[in-house]
């Protein structure tokens, strides 16, 4: 169905000869600043919200990359830049060896079929005035891949695949529960058989009991269709469940990245340690034994981020150097090459941050 049209038909995507075959998407040094306008009729830019500031990542074929961080750290902005919904200020997004950064709507069109999104809010992401059949059938209509009865059959197959009753084709979104609505969103994202699905906090709006169902569905679909996921969440236990690699973001920058098990077992960045210690554990015994690192203060304004390491005002290990020099993202403390941390004083294995020196809570 989706193979009928030539995929690289659009001009404008520049091939990259150095692109590795097993990588699906590569993001290099992506920057997204939102200008802040002031003044009425003739507006001028008085500053920038530095939502994403130099993030690089790779998503391998069939892999799941977990993207975690607090609200407002630029996760969703990064996702929208990769999906081509927001123009990037600088940096590149390369999809299967072709630069797809800031393509025009027309040039982006063939890549829309390859990169799809699942949205956070199952209530806001479905048009309340349209029937489910029409919503899931939209991708077919827009890309003219199926019409009439063929489209209806394709939509009903999708509904069945994601665990919805195909008979409910003619219902409105309001007649479904949150979990079912998210399944509708999954079916819509799946319709064009994309290679990459960007899931922007796909389960954070759902009941915990429903979360597992949707997560299992996503992982089944990954096996069946060979999907790659960029999975955004602020719940680390969810990310741990699904991700091959994890990327921890703080205030528009990558704090730490690496294979999931390594980052979870030996987090190096104090921020990662704090995030991990905040994730609730299912076992009350281990929960009681754990050290809790409680961060003080709020996330600083991305309009005027702190100098040096952006985390230093809240970091229990911060020293003079942290406010002056920005740490490079590199492997620390004998970690393997792919586990990298942007920290001058990475946390040692077994170190107890809760009692560490440095700044006391304000």
């Amino acid at each position, binding site marked *: 169905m989706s193979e009928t049209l030539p995929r690289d038909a659009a001009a404008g995507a520049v091939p990259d000869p150095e692109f590795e075959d097993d990588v699906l998407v590569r993001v290099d040094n992506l920057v997204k600043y939102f200008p802040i306008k002031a003044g009425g009729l003739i507006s001028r830019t008085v500053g920038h919200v530095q939502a994403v500031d130099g993030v690089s990542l790779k998503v391998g074929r069939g892999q799941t990359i977990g993207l975690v961080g607090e609200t407002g750290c630029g996760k969703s902005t990064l996702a*929208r830049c990769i*999906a*081509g*919904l927001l123009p990037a200020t600088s940096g590149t997004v390369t999809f299967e060896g072709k630069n797809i950064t800031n393509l025009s*709507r027309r040039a*982006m*069109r063939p890549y*829309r*079929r390859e990169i*799809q*999104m699942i*949205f*956070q*809010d199952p209530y*806001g*992401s*479905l*048009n*309340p*005035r*349209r*029937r489910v059949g029409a919503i899931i059938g*939209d*991708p077919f209509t*827009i*890309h003219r891949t199926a019409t009439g009865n063929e489209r209806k059959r394709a939509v009903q197959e999708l509904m069945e695949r994601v665990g919805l009753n195909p*008979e*409910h084709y*003619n*219902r*409105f979104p*309001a*007649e479904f529960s949150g979990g079912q609505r998210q399944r509708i*969103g999954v079916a*819509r994202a799946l319709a*064009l058989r994309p290679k990459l699905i960007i899931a922007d906090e796909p389960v954070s709006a759902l009941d915990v009991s429903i979360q597992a169902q949707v997560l299992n569905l996503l992982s089944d679909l990954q096996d069946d269709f060979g999907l790659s996921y960029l999975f955004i969440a602020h719940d680390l236990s969810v990310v741990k469940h699904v991700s091959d690699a994890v990327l921890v973001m703080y205030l528009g920058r990558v704090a730490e990245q690496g294979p999931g098990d390594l980052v979870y077992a030996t987090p190096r960045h104090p921020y990662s340690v704090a995030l991990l210690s905040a994730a609730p554990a299912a076992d009350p015994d281990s929960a009681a034994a754990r050290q809790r690192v409680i961060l003080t203060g709020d996330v600083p304004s991305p309009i005027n981020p702190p100098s040096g390491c952006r985390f230093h005002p809240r970091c229990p290990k911060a020293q003079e150097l942290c406010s002056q020099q920005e740490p490079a993202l590199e492997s620390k403390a004998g970690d393997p090459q792919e586990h990298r941390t942007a920290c001058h004083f990475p946390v040692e294995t077994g170190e107890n941050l809760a009692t560490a020196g440095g700044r006391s809570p304000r």
Partner: protein
Amino acid sequence: MSVTELEFQAHSVEAAPAEAIQGRSQWQLTWRRLRHDKMAIASIVVILIVALLAILAPVFASLLGHGPYQAFTSKGLSVDGLPVAPGVNGFPLGTDYVGRDLLVRILYGARISLFVGISTTAMATVLGVAVGLVAGYFGGWIDTVLARFIDAVLAFPIIVLALALAAIYGSSLLIVIAVITFFSWAGISRIVRGQTLSIKEKEYIEAARSLGAGPWRIMFIDILPNLLGPVLVLATLYIPTAIVFEATLSFLGIGIPAPTPSWGIILSEAQQFYQTSWWYVVFPAAALLITTLAFNLLGDGVRDAMDPRTERLFAGSTKRRKRKAAAPAGPDATPPAAAAAGMGG
């Protein structure tokens, strides 16, 4: 609702599970609520009667043997040369100042009023929705230009423009329609623009963009259905405004030219005769009042049906209350469709 209707409803839900699966659209839900609004239903009936009378105006004319322009100088006027009273000499509502049948002229006037009211509202709605959508969706300088233009139109002295146009081109039906349309679309545009501004930030619009939908598809497939509700209410309320507007222009002599039977013209002619011939004023005024009142009440009803949260003072809700009270007493299987229908919208 009568008992038989209740039974019938319960029955149909049991009998047809396939029907229960079919979700009810916004329009079905609105109609279901509107159906129980006595005032709105009465308004619809009145409007339909007025429309039917307007359509059948030539039939009445031929039955009575009185054309709309036919002046009966002998039997249509009294010895003093004044209009004759209702019922005299076979004129059911009397005659006007040259002895024409008032009933026939009022019926023909209904044609003009309905035509002007509906055609101007239709054109103003299409134009207003298009401009509002484009301004709201594209934003930027397009929005700035269009929004200022809307403001300019809304600030324009309408009577002055109508007078000027009538002076230059002479008064005609076309100019009346053009003037009313020109001053009606801006209000609709402003509402549509505001709604579009809020709807375009919704996540489902972003979802449509991520699927590769273009701006026109997003505007007309994704945004438009979400604002048809307020637009419909507004349009229903614009019809009576346009009817009154036409009557006003005609009354002032800058609307439809004189011999044409328009309610405004009849009222204007009647000014000199209200002391001697009450019917000359009362009947065309009543026709105008009843028609515009019916449209206004229907507009209120549609608004209430669209948004069930607003409660109206005189909405005929005694039956609704009775129905609510009767519901738990009925068979324990609550029809799922009815329950879903109550929540949706």
